[in-house]
């Protein structure tokens, strides 16, 4: 809502300058987004008159003009050919910044000094059609009545400030100047000067022949329908003052009649519509739902097909307007119109909203209906129209006013308890203070008993429904700044994370400590996100939930795994030459529980990561290329940090997007809790990643269920440890995991630690074999081990390995 400051001052005494008023309104709940100074770009432009003209001695097409600007006469050189001595015109003086961006400085044109510029409509951002014939090609020639020396903004009537309100949806009342004035009076003080019709006083009209019949077929969608007949209509132009106000409010002047309906809408917030009575078949107004498939050509000359959810105004035969949205061409007011019916109605906001959305038609009127208009005031508004019609000499309003109001709204009264005000706001107001605060809103009220106020809610404040709504009125008018700061008293509460919340956080920190950087991708993705993963048709990841109204196709399905997001993020980074990537993400993925989506989907927490590229060489460290075991090591750290002990990695060959020889399922408590390994080379290529890429995907719930998070102390050994190595040659198919298990089985509790320290295949090792070397650490918690018993145990281990794996022991 654009509120013109001068207009506002006519309705309420305001002493504050625009900026200060805006600040005060904002702090009292009527947010002013900005204050616009309409005259700013016309600063240093004034009305001048040419007192003398001569040809430039060196240029045929230039004129040297003497221009009277009130305080002095300036010499200005112009190239325009449409001016003559005696013309009044806008003169831009040095220092002016014109609306089209031009800055004016003293200059010389072909050696002749020029102190300013004569302006065209274009330079002033004015519509040439609003000005005389002579102004069309060249300088804007002003009418005779222009005052020499008058600031041009004042002449145009744009020496005006506009307060742009950003209204909350509950304050639709402030879409009318009258109610803005009421707010300003309550907030800033100052007497209101409201005309009688603003207070619902209905007009006394001379009786005429009103033959139109109004029928409301759907009272649920149209609470009230009022209409007034205007006869002897003469369509023409509006007076300047009305044009100026409409323009300041952001509306375009059109014709006297349309301008009146818009002007009254700006005053009262009530949209109005005009029908040519002669064009209403059967002289009928019927408010009814459209018949499915029914069509209407709207004022913008577009044929609209309607459905049964849309409300129309129809005559005997067909729709003549879409209720609250737009009129029809068939009942349009034209230059030949003699009798007009002005509609002032209340249509249900949600119905107007649905219709305007469906048709893609939004207007000042539809927006006001959507937010709700004041049904109580419809006839009084028509009275205001009648006054203006007469004042502007457009025609003659005659009665009776047609008014169909099946179920009038009952007046609303709310109780307000002083104790509740104080308890909710943390204040200590007395009855009188509450009364005097609410009195600023000009509400009628009385004390039913001490501490209990009964407040009559005027019909224009439909937002006040329950007691807390009134408490808010007290709070905002009393001032939020006058409310103190305390802390809640009561039982002490402990703030802590749940076990799972703690684990999610611990997982992030663990991954970061292992060198992984967290990314956050959108939870929705492209339906094609899985295309490059070569998934089978029935893969669970393909059960993507669709968004009905996505922002764009790439964000149209809910993710079923974090992996594609990570791959796309990696690809995007690689395309920007960020080649060395270690990324992870934690978050929910979504799987339907029901194909029809009748119930909420499962939301499953996932932890996933990706590593590719290298850790670059430095002066004292060799380059490290990411590999399987880097990622595996990070996951082992993660499991340690989360307190997960019972896990293993088992080779898996059938994940279609993974390298069949370099991928492992991660088993936790005997169940698959995820996988890790090298991405299939074809997938690497499909994402244009720079080389071998390693990924992992973990199931959060499986991890969290297994996370014991318990650290159990075991005593620091007091007796010395004995270290022995074993080097052995086995078939390359024998997994280290199996050898570990064998060693541990024999070593039992005296074997404190086994560590693999070398793996070798190549020269000196027969084909199909690999050489492994382990360090074994023997130690007892109770005594010093003797050489003999260690040797004996060590030999038994060797013998077992020989037996189980045909291991050839090496020295």
């Amino acid at each position, binding site marked *: 809502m654009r509120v013109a400051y001068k207009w506002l001052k006519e309705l309420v005494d305001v002493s504050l300058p625009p900026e200060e008023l805006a600040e005060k309104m904002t702090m009292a709940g009527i947010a002013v987004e900005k204050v616009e100074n309409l005259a700013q770009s016309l600063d240093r432009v004034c009305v001048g008159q040419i007192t003398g003209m001569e040809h430039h001695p060196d240029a045929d097409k230039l004129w040297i003009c003497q221009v009277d600007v009130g305080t002095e006469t300036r010499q200005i050189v112009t190239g325009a050919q449409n001016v003559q001595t005696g013309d009044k015109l806008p003169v831009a003086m040095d220092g002016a910044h014109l609306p089209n961006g031009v800055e004016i400085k003293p200059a010389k044109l072909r050696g002749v000094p020029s102190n300013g510029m004569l302006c065209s409509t274009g330079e002033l951002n004015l519509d040439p059609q609003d000005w005389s014939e002579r102004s069309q090609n060249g300088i804007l020639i002003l009418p005779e009545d222009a005052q020499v020396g008058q600031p041009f903004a004042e002449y145009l009537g744009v020496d005006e400030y506009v307060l742009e309100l950003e209204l909350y949806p509950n304050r639709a009342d402030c879409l009318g100047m009258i109610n803005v004035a009421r707010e300003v009076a309550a907030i800033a003080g100052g007497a209101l000067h409201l005309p009688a019709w603003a207070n619902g006083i209905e007009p006394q009209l001379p009786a005429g022949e009103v033959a139109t019949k109004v029928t409301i077929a759907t009272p649920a969608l149209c609470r009230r329908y009022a209409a007034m007949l205007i006869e002897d209509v003469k369509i023409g132009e509006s007076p300047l003052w009305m044009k100026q106000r409409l323009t300041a409010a952001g509306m375009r002047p059109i014709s006297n009649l349309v301008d009146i309906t818009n002007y009254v809408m700006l005053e009262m917030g009530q949209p109005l519509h005009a029908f040519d009575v002669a064009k209403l078949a059967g002289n009928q107004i019927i408010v009814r739902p459209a018949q499915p498939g029914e069509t209407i050509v709207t004022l913008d000359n577009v044929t609209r097909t309607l459905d049964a959810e849309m409300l129309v105004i129809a005559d005997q035969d067909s729709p003549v307007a879409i209720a609250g949205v737009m009129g029809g061409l068939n009942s349009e007011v034209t230059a030949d119109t003699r009798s007009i019916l002005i509609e002032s109605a209340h249509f249900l906001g949600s119905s107007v909203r649905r219709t305007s959305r469906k048709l893609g038609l939004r207007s000042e009127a539809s927006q006001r209906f959507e937010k709700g208009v004041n049904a109580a005031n419809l006839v009084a508004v028509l009275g205001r129209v009648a006054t203006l019609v007469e004042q502007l000499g457009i025609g003659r309003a005659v009665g009776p006013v047609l008014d169909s109001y099946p179920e009038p709204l009952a007046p609303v009264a709310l109780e307000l308890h002083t104790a509740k005000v104080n308890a*909710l706001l*943390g204040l200590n107001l007395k009855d009188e203070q509450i009364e005097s605060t609410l009195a600023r809103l000009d509400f009628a009220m009385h004390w039913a008993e001490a501490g209990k106020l009964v407040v009559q809610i005027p019909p224009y404040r439909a937002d006040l429904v329950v007691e807390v709504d009134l408490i*808010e009125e007290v709070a905002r008018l009393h001032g939020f700044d006058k409310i103190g700061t305390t802390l*809640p008293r009561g*039982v002490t509460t402990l703030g802590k994370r749940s076990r799972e919340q703690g684990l999610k956080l611990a997982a992030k920190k663990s991954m970061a400590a292992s060198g992984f950087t*967290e990314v956050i991708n959108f939870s929705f993705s492209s339906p094609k996100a899985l295309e490059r993963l070569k998934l089978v048709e029935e893969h669970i990841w393909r059960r993507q939930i669709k968004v009905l*109204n996505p922002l764009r196709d790439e964000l149209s399905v809910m993710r079923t795994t974090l992996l594609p997001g990570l791959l796309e993020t990696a690809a995007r980074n690689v395309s920007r030459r960020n080649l060395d990537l270690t990324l992870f993400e934690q978050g929910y993925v*979504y799987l339907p529980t029901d194909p029809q989506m009748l119930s909420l*989907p499962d*939301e499953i927490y996932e932890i996933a990561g990706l590593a590719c590229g290298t850790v670059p060489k430095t002066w004292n460290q060799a380059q490290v290329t990411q590999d399987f075991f880097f990622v595996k090591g990070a996951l082992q750290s993660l499991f340690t940090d989360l307190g997960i002990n019972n896990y293993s990695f088992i080779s898996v060959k059938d994940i279609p997007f993974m390298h069949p020889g370099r991928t492992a399922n991660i088993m936790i408590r005997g169940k698959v809790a995820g996988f890790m390994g090298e991405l299939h080379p074809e997938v690497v290529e499909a994402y244009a990643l720079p080389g071998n890429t390693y990924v992992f995907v973990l199931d959060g719930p499986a991890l969290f269920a297994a996370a014991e998070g318990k650290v159990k102390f075991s005593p620091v050994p007091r007796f010395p440890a004995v270290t022995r190595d074993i080097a052995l040659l086995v078939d390359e198919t024998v997994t280290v995991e199996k050898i570990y298990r064998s060693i541990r089985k024999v070593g039992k509790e005296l074997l404190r630690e086994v560590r693999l320290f070398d793996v070798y295949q190549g020269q000196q090792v027969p084909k199909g074999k690999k050489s492994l070397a382990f360090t074994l650490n023997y130690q007892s918690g109770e005594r010093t081990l003797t050489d003999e018993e260690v040797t004996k145990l060590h030999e038994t281990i060797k013998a077992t390995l020989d037996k189980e794996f045909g291991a050839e022991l090496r020295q």
Partner: protein
Amino acid sequence: MEQELAALQLEAEAAIAQITLLEGLNELRVKYLGKKGLLTASLRNMGALSAEERPRVGQIVNTVRDVIESQLAAKEEQLRLAALASRLAQETIDVTLPGRTFIKGNVHPLSQVQEEIEQIFLGMGFTIAEGPEIETDYYNFEALNIPKDHPAREMQDSFYITEEILLRTHTSPVQIRAMEKLVPSLPVKLICPGKVFRKDDDATHSPMFHQVEGLVVDKGISLADLKGILLEFARQMFGPERQIRLRPSFFPFTEPSAEVDVSCMLCGGSGCRICKGSGWIEILGSGMVHPNVLKMGGYDSEELTGFAFGMGVERIAMLKYGIDDMRYLYDNDLRFLKQF
């Protein structure tokens, strides 16, 4: 005899002075003080002295030995220090060479800021509640006093899955779910962090973003309590000098409602580019829980009151780090992420 000893002392002193290597020093020790050394030899001549002279000359011999020994020791220390100094000099490194690189990962700035917000409220006795990101219309709107035809639930603002299921547009539904679970226990004191979704996409809006909302319900909770909690939050988050101010606003689920501004952390309130000259920066929305919402959560709206607030984690992060375009936060460019 006495003269011989004096000469011997002088000779030894001169020899010690000239030594530059530790080995030479040992040779001298043997030469003068060894079993077959010169001083020992002179002792052997003692027999020729009279009984009266012997103790006196013996004394002199001891003095000369002491002098030579102490000079040898002094010289030895001097040489040791010189050798150490020269070794240390040779071991000098270029301390400006870069240190060993440890591969360090980063937690996303949004996660960091969210954790910081959570930590502040945990410290004030709040617990953390979570709920589904895909929600029912009931929890996302209806239970929050946003009836079917409210403008806030228009298709253009929310992402729908079906007519009844949508991506939550705020974390407020978690407040209702949490109240349903907790009722009738008091106080309710929780925050709800998480992802939310709205149909917006520009430099200051992202179709997915993060919120932290808070809810307190108890007997006697007032707007002054809300101000107290938020002032404490603002000071812990943005510095101990911060002030807050409440501007009346509108949310369907609170009444009264207020936008909360914090005094500008850059200029302290005098006005600058960040606060657009006003000295204040909007950081969150808040209000007293609407009685209808308390009822929906199962609590007695006559007996109890509560407050609620909600903030965008992105906004807080952008203010904290001076990020001017929200899209950086979801672009996941490593050169951006590595800065935090």
